[in-house]
């Protein structure tokens, strides 16, 4: 009760609103719907791309991003692979 009241008085104290949750969940699910890719396909795509990149550089696995996004009815694959270092054998060649 009191918490509800406080959240109403100070909206910034509450967690993310259900309105914002709806938006974020929809954006994700619609990006997948539009692309027509199954989660398995995305996972195998991610693995193959990682494999190729991994031949040249070490990637920060924790910080990497690999998601589908949709803007203005266009789907895009957003990938962000932070590079820890270039593999020594690549530099030698």
């Amino acid at each position, binding site marked *: 009760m009191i918490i509800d009241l406080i959240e*109403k008085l100070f909206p910034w104290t509450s967690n993310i*609103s259900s309105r914002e949750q709806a*938006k974020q969940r*929809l*954006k994700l699910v*619609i990006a997948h*719907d539009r692309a027509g890719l199954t989660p398995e396909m995305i996972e195998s795509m991610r693995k193959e791309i990682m494999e190729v990149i991994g031949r040249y550089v070490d990637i920060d696995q924790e910080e990497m991003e690999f998601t589908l996004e949709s803007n203005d*009815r266009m789907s895009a694959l957003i990938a962000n692979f932070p590079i820890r270092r270039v593999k020594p054998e690549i530099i030698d060649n």
Partner: protein
Amino acid sequence: MSKIIVITSGKGGVGKTTVTANLGSALTQLGRKVALLDADFGLRNLDLLLGLENRIVYTAIEVISGECRLEQALVKDKRQPGLVLLPAAQSRNKESITAEQIKEVVNQLAQTFDYIFIDCPAGIEMGFRNAIAPAQEAIIVTTPEVSAVRDADRVIGLLEANGVKNIRLIINRIKPEMVQMNEMMSVEDVLEILAINLIGIVPDDTRVIVSSNKGEPLVLGHPTSLPAMAFNNIARRLEGEKVPLIDLMASQENFLSRIRRFFKG
């Protein structure tokens, strides 16, 4: 040149049939000749919302099979000269209808009427494909709920793939007080996600149910109610007029947010 517009949503129960009945009535009041085609074979409801359920003799199926002429199947609305309903069959096998047959019927209607609205069944199967086949334009009806918006997005994709170019959106059943509390997506939120042109917004109103109880579209029974004004505005936009959106949030503003808005300009 008549306009052939399909009213569709993907998800059921978001207000397609209510929109069809009210837009038809609103355009009739603007002096247009309007035909409403119920393409929801097996689960017809447009006749009920218009209060014409007792006057049906033939349906679109009899027209298609050649058992009657088109004019015999058209149900005229006595309260609104200029508006006719071509009902769907309630019993017959709907699988027997093809897109070509629906196109043929709509083309015949197009010779007499200024507007032909096709009330599309829910879903994206055969009935949906038949209903969108003759359409040049589409009106998508959605509500600010996750499932309705997701299905609307699917349907927009299918319409685009089928060559329907002019696709516009109605956001139905908005509750301004919930948007204000950040408990419902706003018009802007839905537009950001769907990225198509908006043709109107309709607030949630209990009178919509009352008018369906009576079989009398809101624009006839309660022309001064907010939803009826919203439908009338959409009708005028279809006619090419520039009509500003009703500011649904205005009633929700308190003193502080008004001051804030004043300074924002």
